[in-house]
């Protein structure tokens, strides 16, 4: 793989996501707004909130990341850029990897950085906040990676944004289970190995997804 083309695609995607109208600010706002709505719904019992915090924040992070996923390839497909990118020296697998990395850097990472603040507001003790942050840091790449498969598959579907969550959410169940489970383990004073499982899951997903996503994009370009 050549580095200059890979980095240029990555840099362009980050630039597009961070410019006005980009997805970073939107994802962060969505994440915070969802996390705010939950205590309004379930009441302000801090004990209850602390128990629910990891699950709520993990689900909110997954949904916030999904928001921008359906545009991952579609934006480039609609204006013809994807053809130009496909004809570049990069293989479609590398293109998918660059897009996944770019998506994670502009959603998963900022969400992770915001999560300690929200964890604090949910009454999580410091050590649980630390584990929550670590779990999001190692788990959210899997969200971008598996989401990229869904984005590739729904590339040519006009209402693809509606189908994508249905395709991707069941696949992400292990990330939510292990991510939130790690934090609950801290609250219960158990060491349950969740972070290791989460890391293994995220690693496998990140390594394998570019191939599936590239296959999906290739097939849709031929349409």
């Amino acid at each position, binding site marked *: 793989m050549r580095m200059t083309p890979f980095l240029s695609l990555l840099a362009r995607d980050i630039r597009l996501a961070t410019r006005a109208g980009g997805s970073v600010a939107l994802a962060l706002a969505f994440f915070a707004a969802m996390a705010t709505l939950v205590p309004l719904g379930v009441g302000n019992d801090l004990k209850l909130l602390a128990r629910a915090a990891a699950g709520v924040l993990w689900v909110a992070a997954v949904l916030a990341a999904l928001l921008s996923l359906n545009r991952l390839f579609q934006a480039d497909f609609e204006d013809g850029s994807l053809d130009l990118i496909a004809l570049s020296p990069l293989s479609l697998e590398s293109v998918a990897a660059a897009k996944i990395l770019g998506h994670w850097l502009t959603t998963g990472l900022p969400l992770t950085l915001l999560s300690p603040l929200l964890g604090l507001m949910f009454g999580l003790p410091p050590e649980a906040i630390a584990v929550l942050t670590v779990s999001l840091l190692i788990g959210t790449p899997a969200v971008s990676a598996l989401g990229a498969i869904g984005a590739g598959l729904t590339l040519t579907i006009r209402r693809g944004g509606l189908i994508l969550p249905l*395709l991707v959410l069941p696949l992400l*169940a292990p990330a939510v289970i292990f991510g939130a489970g790690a934090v609950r383990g801290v609250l219960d004073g158990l060491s349950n190995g969740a972070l290791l499982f989460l890391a293994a899951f995220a690693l496998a997903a990140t390594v394998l997804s570019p191939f599936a996503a590239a296959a999906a994009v290739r097939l849709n370009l031929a349409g």
Partner: protein
Amino acid sequence: MPSLFTYANPKRFMDLSSALLPWLTVATVLFLFAGLVLGFLSPPDYQQGDTVKLMFLHVPAAWTAMMAYGLLAVASFFSLVWRHPLADVAAKTAAPLGAVFTVLGLVTGSLWGRPMWGAWWVWDARLTSFLLLLFLYLGYIALWNAIEDETRAARAAAILGLVGAINLPIIEFSVNWQTLHQGESIFREGGPTIASVFLWPLGFSGLGYTLLFFTLWFVRIRTEILERRARALLLAGAA
């Protein structure tokens, strides 16, 4: 006029399945009947009473739902690697059937659970992973329906089918892990061991469900092939 069917020959499947279907149907009826009758005649369980009889409806449904996804994944693999239209059709038609057996497994599981757990739904590992399996099926069906071009829809669905098949054991593992680690044990891992009086009816009804799936599957594949032929003829006539 070359069409999908110039490149593959589903004719052999049509001949084979039309010879096989009557036998399959008879065998399905016999085994299901035997399984249900023996099931209802079996003695009540010392712990669960008569509700144990739901097992003969639930366990085979769950098994068939899993098998259907396995077959869907195998067909997807054939479809991607050898681009065989029959594999496309086989995968496509397995999905709605698998989804129905999954729903059947969920409903009977919930009915079975009510007297045991005192609630219609508990987040037991098996029920939860079946619910996720249902979503995998629904996503697969939705993707098929959303892509208009048939060949492209088949390939996209095949990719999703394979990704789902790789992920399914991990989902299963994670859900089991969660149930074991949430502190409040609802359902003992492994469940009650099965007494031999229940084994025969379970075997019969399991075989009956499996045969039922294959019967319905073959009928659905035949219908889909005939539909595609009819459409190809109409298009050829219009051109």
